[in-house]
């Protein structure tokens, strides 16, 4: 697991399981058996950063964010 870079993080209190993120970014996000996102914990690869930003933008509940790891 990469310790540096940018990582996706779900605020599960805000998340309603709408599932758009998994549609936009299947490379990093799958849904559990109840429709809530399981996000890969490691850093987002540079070629997926635009897609990840799009997933963050599309979340209707603002539950997904990109955070920088130090």
């Amino acid at each position: 697991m990469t310790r540096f870079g940018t990582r996706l993080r779900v605020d599960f209190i805000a998340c309603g399981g709408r599932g758009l993120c998994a549609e936009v970014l299947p490379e990093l996000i799958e849904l559990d058996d109840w429709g809530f996102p399981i996000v890969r914990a490691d850093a987002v690869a540079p070629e997926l950063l635009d897609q990840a930003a799009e997933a963050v933008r599309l979340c209707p509940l603002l539950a997904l964010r990109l955070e920088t790891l130090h």
Partner: protein
Amino acid sequence: MTSGVCLALGDPAGPERKGASPGLPRLLPARSAGGPASLAEHLARHGPAARTDRSRPDLIGEVAAAGLTGRGGASFPTARKLAAVAAGRGEPLVIANGTEGEPASAKDKVLLAREPHLVLDGAALAAAIVGASDAVVVTHRAVSEIVAAAVEERRAARQDRVRLRVAIAAGTFVGGEASAVANWLQHGVAKPTATPPRLAERGVRGAPTLVQNVETLAHLALIGRHGASWFRAVGTPAEPGSMLVTVTGAVRRPGVHEIAIGTRGSEILDLAGGPAEPVRALLLGGYFGSWAPAEAAMAAPFSAAGLAHLAASPGAGLVVALPFGICGLAETARVARYLAAESAGQCGPCVFGLGSIAAELSALAAGRPADVRLLRRWLGQVDGRGGCGHPTGAVRLIRSALAVFSDEVVQHADGWCCGTAGQAVLPVPSAAAMLKAARS
């Protein structure tokens, strides 16, 4: 809401007592009188409260040198929390967490009922260290009057510079989680909040907030008086000090005891009079803890290092002896249903996942058709997700049950159970009590 809560005290300490460690007890000394220790009695025993005119880094350094860690279950280094809150912006707030929503655990209630001033000393010292002028003791309803009386006693004696206040805790399991305690104080909602922000940065009303378990603060009070090397004289070099344990289940005298960290499981059971009948397994740590086979758990030192090979840890100090004849799967299924019902209801993986897991485990425990592979899949999906550690803690307990009672899993799948229906060692509050707590 004290159903199932054991408030029995351990035997008065004596040097000849089986299982007792030298230098202990520190927090729960033997006393001739019943009831809580008065301020005068407390000060006569422990001496005046720690001086707080040392520099802040000096005080935090002493705590770091002592190696004190949180006794609420997570074992986080106390000095790091103190430093984070002290470095925060604005005037901090100190919260002494005596919620103890764990149904089988009594150690915080016993500590507050017997030695409230030790906890209050610790809260006052923590406030001085981080620069707070207010500290709130959030206490289980069962002991709130004792704590309130102790605070009143100190006020009359002008004991503290810090303002101490008492609040009654939410009577729920998840209500003891640090952010839920802060949320409860500020909004009356005992549910965890999202991170970030961390409480140390922005907690109650935006103030840097220190939430420490009451036992941790009692240790802090003694470190303030006697220093780091005194603290480290018991315990292990990596995990120094003593801790309170609640010992229950199939032991002769269930109760709360103080042990040196690293004390063997068998000696812990001896403190409670020894096994009342042959023991199949021990539940270690709490309802977020782990089952371990009795023989291995009794031989192991009760410390993070000593229990690591059993995938267990001391947690909040709960030790429950499960006798042969009571089904570990049925016990775990009942606790799983309780933990699922105690979900704060905020996060999908917890609400839906724990509910599904508890139902499948219950079917397995009852000998009804159950899909163990699906159960394991769900445990994998729920692990590590959610706004707080509730789902992850529940997963830990259930996984350990499937591992330790693996023979029973096979037997149950064939419709046969080793246990006797109707008996129980792990208490869970009744639905009525939970409803009452949720509404209070």
